[in-house]
């Protein structure tokens, strides 16, 4: 595989192909453009540095990159500069705050995504929204919202199974 040989042309393709998806994940979690721009650079440099450790027998390349991006973004929100006004806020405030910030600050065109998520039952949408769009881990979600971890996991499963048919994954 050309990427494993760290071919920069291949990396160029990789960036062009995946940067949009990964950037959208990062910017939803950190919610600030300038932070997201810095972060997505770190993400791709990390992908570049660790590409040799990616094992295609253990999963898809995108999943591997997605988790790098997601973990980098989550790490960022845990750092001091990002810690104010996030998960320590009470839930109602958080939800309204995020909604307000997203509509006011972020040029995120997620109409298609929102439509997709709206097709999910409320409890499943909540899980996916927090895991993928807001950067919670399953454990954090369970802890923050007082849901048993097992329930978070099965809801995640049910949501993804539902999405599977919505998105025509066969």
């Amino acid at each position: 595989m050309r990427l494993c040989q760290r071919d920069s042309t291949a990396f160029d393709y990789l960036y062009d192909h995946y940067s949009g998806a990964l950037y959208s994940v990062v910017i939803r979690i950190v919610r600030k453009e300038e932070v997201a721009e810095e972060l997505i650079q770190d993400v791709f440099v990390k992908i570049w540095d660790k590409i040799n450790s990616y094992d295609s027998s253990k999963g898809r390349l995108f999943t591997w990159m997605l988790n790098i991006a997601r973990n980098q973004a989550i790490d960022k929100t845990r750092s001091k500069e990002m810690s104010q006004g996030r998960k320590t806020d009470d839930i109602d405030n958080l939800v309204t705050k995020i909604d307000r910030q997203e509509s006011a600050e972020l040029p995120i065109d997620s109409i298609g995504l929102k439509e997709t998520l709206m097709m999910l039952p409320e409890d499943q949408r909540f899980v996916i929204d927090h895991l993928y769009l807001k950067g919670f881990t399953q454990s954090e979600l369970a802890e923050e919202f007082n849901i048993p971890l097992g329930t978070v996991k099965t809801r995640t499963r049910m949501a993804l199974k539902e999405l599977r048919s919505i998105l025509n994954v066969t």
Partner: protein
Amino acid sequence: MNTQEYISSGILESYALGEVTESERVSVEQTLKQHPELREELRMIEETLEKLVFDSSLTPPAHVKEKVMSRINSSSKTEAKIVALYPEQVWKYATAASVAIALFASFMAFQYHQLWKADSIELAQIKSENQRIAEEYNVVNQKLDKIQGDLTIMESTAFIKVILKGTDNDKNALASVYWNSSTQEVFLNIQQLKAISKENQFQLWAIVDGKPVDAGVFDSNFAGLLKMKSINGAVAFAVTVEPRGGKENPSLETMRLIGNVERNPS
């Protein structure tokens, strides 16, 4: 193991999210190896996540890519130096380089061979042309020398010009003898003379003291002046037709030309 229960637990989703402990991860990977239906399930989970995220793609500003590429290029340069130290890699590059050089050299050799072939053919042509021109030059030069020599004789006041005119045997015949009375040299020039058979030759006679003296034989196919035998005290010159090689005494009935020596007034 009941794979349906395993799937229902949502462990594969957690695995896909990277949200499993190290021991769970090892366990999941082990289980995946044994059960193709679990691998298929994981593939669909991953594809679903991928589609979900791609549907919400958001292109980062262009300058981000530039920064990423420059960071990557600066890191790969330092790595390239390390790589170059491995003998195996060096061999690869050396082999590649030598193959490239060999191919290039072969190509250039072929090119130069073609050029050389073309050049050597051209050179041979030029050489033969040169030789031909040189030969022609020599011929022309000899002719020129001859003409210059003839001209010197014809113009010289030391030579007496004796005009020989045709007899009844060849009325249109015309020739000249240039005779230097002090050096006794004799030159013949023919303007007009009827051809004779190959068995015969013309013979020039000088009349000295009332007797014909052999001045040499000739064929009519020459240009300019022909040097004949030296003659002293001639009063007239004549040309007869004789058997090839000439005779001691002229056959008067075959006479073609005759002319008297007219002394210059000086």
